[in-house]
């Protein structure tokens, strides 16, 4: 069996190398589109290496399966912070030599140019994104403006969309229950804190519609299936600006996270994958990406270059999760907490869901 797997892998390797093509796995929808426009097209134009773009609900999940089976087809994947750390710790990722990353145009070294935490042993961040909640203006006579309103179905009637995962859901529940953003993980560390989060979720359990893929919440909101939904902020931006949907983001209680490029161990085209990562995370490319979707660039030097959305009218700055006005009550995802407690809390989350 193993031999067969190795042989098929070998075949894929030689096959792929001959074509000079790399496979990049991302989250689909408007986000993948922004990467195709800002990174992939210019990369192919410059190097002649073509890119096969594939999507998953969460690209971290196929990596272990592929590496363990010895049949890796992904060269570069876009994953969340806690997944990047966990996969790296488990030896499932190639280490990335950070010296390949270009300096900022003003000569600042890459190491100083990236936001703190954006560079890891096996991962290079490209964007800062956030989980926010959004609402459909047509279905909410009074506009909700705080995370409390999301959990208040008495004053703000209607269904709620939530990602089917413990991560971010529990934090939001606690913030709505009055825990300050700075204390959320201290509270969630304790059993009482977890109970408290689930108790808060209980209050709206019957009104929740669960989503899994990032493209679902804008759809649920636009269809009027839910009155409010948590979502990745860029997806709402895209639906509101590019597709003219009456959707609005509420920044209160947003949860910030990185998305990082990683290379699965044993990827067929490591060298080209490294080239792609270095290319796509340079100052200009990260700024370009921000003109396609409202995610913040992971380099400080890119900030100044971010201008208007690709429609040429909309200013991007106020739509960024990192804009000062949006950071008033914001939580930064604690990757270590989730690398540690993911299994346990999701088990409890599943039990809570099923009961």
């Amino acid at each position, binding site marked *: *069996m193993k031999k067969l797997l190795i042989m098929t892998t070998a075949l894929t390797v030689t096959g792929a190398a001959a074509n000079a093509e790399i496979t990049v796995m991302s989250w689909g929808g408007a986000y993948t589109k922004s990467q195709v426009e800002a990174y992939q097209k210019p990369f192919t134009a410059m190097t002649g290496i073509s890119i096969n773009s594939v999507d998953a609900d*969460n690209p971290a*999940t196929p990596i*272990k*399966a592929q*590496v363990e089976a010895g049949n890796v087809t992904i060269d570069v994947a876009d994953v969340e912070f806690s997944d990047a750390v*966990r996969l*790296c*710790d*488990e*030896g499932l990722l190639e280490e990335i030599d950070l010296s390949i990353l270009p300096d900022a145009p003003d000569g600042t070294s890459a190491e100083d140019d990236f936001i703190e935490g954006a560079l890891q042993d096996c991962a290079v961040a490209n964007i800062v994104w956030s989980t926010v909640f959004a609402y459909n203006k047509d279905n909410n006579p009074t506009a909700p403006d705080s995370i409390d309103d999301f959990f208040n179905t008495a004053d703000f*009637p209607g*269904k709620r969309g939530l990602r089917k995962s413990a991560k971010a859901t529990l934090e939001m529940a606690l913030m709505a229950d009055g825990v300050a953003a700075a204390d959320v993980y201290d509270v969630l560390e304790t059993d009482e804190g977890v*109970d408290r989060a*689930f108790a808060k979720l209980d209050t709206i*359990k019957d009104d*929740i*519609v*669960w989503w899994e893929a990032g493209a679902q919440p804008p759809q649920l909101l636009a*269809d*009027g*299936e839910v009155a409010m939904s948590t979502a990745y902020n860029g997806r709402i931006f895209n639906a509101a600006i590019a597709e003219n949907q009456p959707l609005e983001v509420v920044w209160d209680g947003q949860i910030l996270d990185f998305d990082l490029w990683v290379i699965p*161990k*044993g990827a067929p085209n490591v060298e080209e994958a490294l080239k792609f990562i270095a290319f796509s995370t340079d100052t200009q490319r990260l700024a370009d990406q921000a003109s396609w979707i409202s995610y913040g660039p992971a380099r400080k030097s890119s900030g100044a270059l971010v201008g208007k959305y690709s429609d040429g009218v909309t200013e991007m700055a106020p739509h960024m999760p990192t804009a000062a006005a949006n950071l008033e009550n914001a939580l930064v995802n604690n990757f*270590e907490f989730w*690398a*540690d*407690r*993911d*299994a*346990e809390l*999701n*088990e*409890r989350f*599943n*039990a*809570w*869901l*099923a*009961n």
Partner: protein
Amino acid sequence: MAELSASNDLVTADGRSLKAALAQAEARAKRRAFLLVAPLLAFVLLTFVVPIGQMLVRSVHNDAFYSWTDRDTGEVIPTMVNLRAWFAQTKAGTEPDEAAYEALVKDLVQARELKSIGQSATRINYEKPGSRSLFTKSARRAPRLEAPFKEALLDVDEDWGDPGLWRAMRDASKTVTLNFYLSALDFERADDGSIVSVNENRAVYVLLFKRTLLLSLLITGLTLILGFPIAFLLATLPMRISNLLMIMVLLPFWTSLLVRTTSWIVLLQSQGVVNDLAVGAGLLADDGRVQLIYNQFGTIIAMTHILLPFTILPLYSVMRPIDPSYVRAARSLGATSWTAFRRIYLPQTVPGIGAGALLVFILAVGYYITPALVGGSDGQLISNLIAFHMQKSLNWSLAAALAALLLGGILILYWLYDRIVGIDNLKLG
């Protein structure tokens, strides 16, 4: 007969012993027959027996804690060697002494060099949630730790003194463990190694096994009630009309499962066709739309529809050849139409009912994509949690244990079916 057995020295035309010649011809025929089925045999072995075997092995054997595969060379390197040696020398429940801590520190140093610590830590995290960072953190500092090691490690984190953690490491060091089966049945091991129920707010698997069984039985019943009259109609109408009807049964059957499931979403969602019609007809108020999907009801409706052809087709194939004169004879002998149906017609369709029910039930028990899409939170089945552990939590041993329990359950039900109805009475088409 007597003559044959006495005449051992019968020979063929070319002088060979008849017995040997016959045996040779028979062996040749057997070889040829074997060669004919060999591709099928290899296929079944490769795609069925081997994966199921692997799954069963994985459910009791998980070497992630003490074995590391170098991804570049493919070499398998034993890790946690010293600690395993200490476990081998001591009895379960032994208080860890200085020697144990020294072994642990040595192993942590090695694990840090190999970068295998994350894998070992994840394995322990299954048994003792929240201990993952304890390992990664301690491994980072391990090279600098000095004797006495017990104090040094407890200094890094006092959780190292937790007997539950040592119990978890001892269990994870064993080649064979039943702990994944315990988890799959909502049990866990206490710090002293005894088996206890998990906290009820984490218990989910038994509930889902029961729900899967109940919903599957319900769906099987529904498909029988809905499918029987259709099959009867198909079997008794003139060929021209019944062919048309048959196409209407088969068209959805040939349509992709995903398309059929998402069609149900379009129909049943609260802004969907059914609700819109009800609101339009004044049956429902606009703000009183009924939740028909993303719950158990959605799972039942969609699965019943999708599995319906699996009942209709075997029933039809059994009903078609039933001679209508039997029922006519019963009626002419004075039976009421109900009696004629119950005593004459129904018994003849039992092989079809059995086949349809068994087919639908077994398919329903393992159904995954439909409940995932339309089941919301209370319409999920056990297969959705197996998928969760395969794809998201990546705890494959637990997924394997759950799958093995499901497989075992189905085999028991199949055996019961054989005892009660008899598998010979099955007609699949």
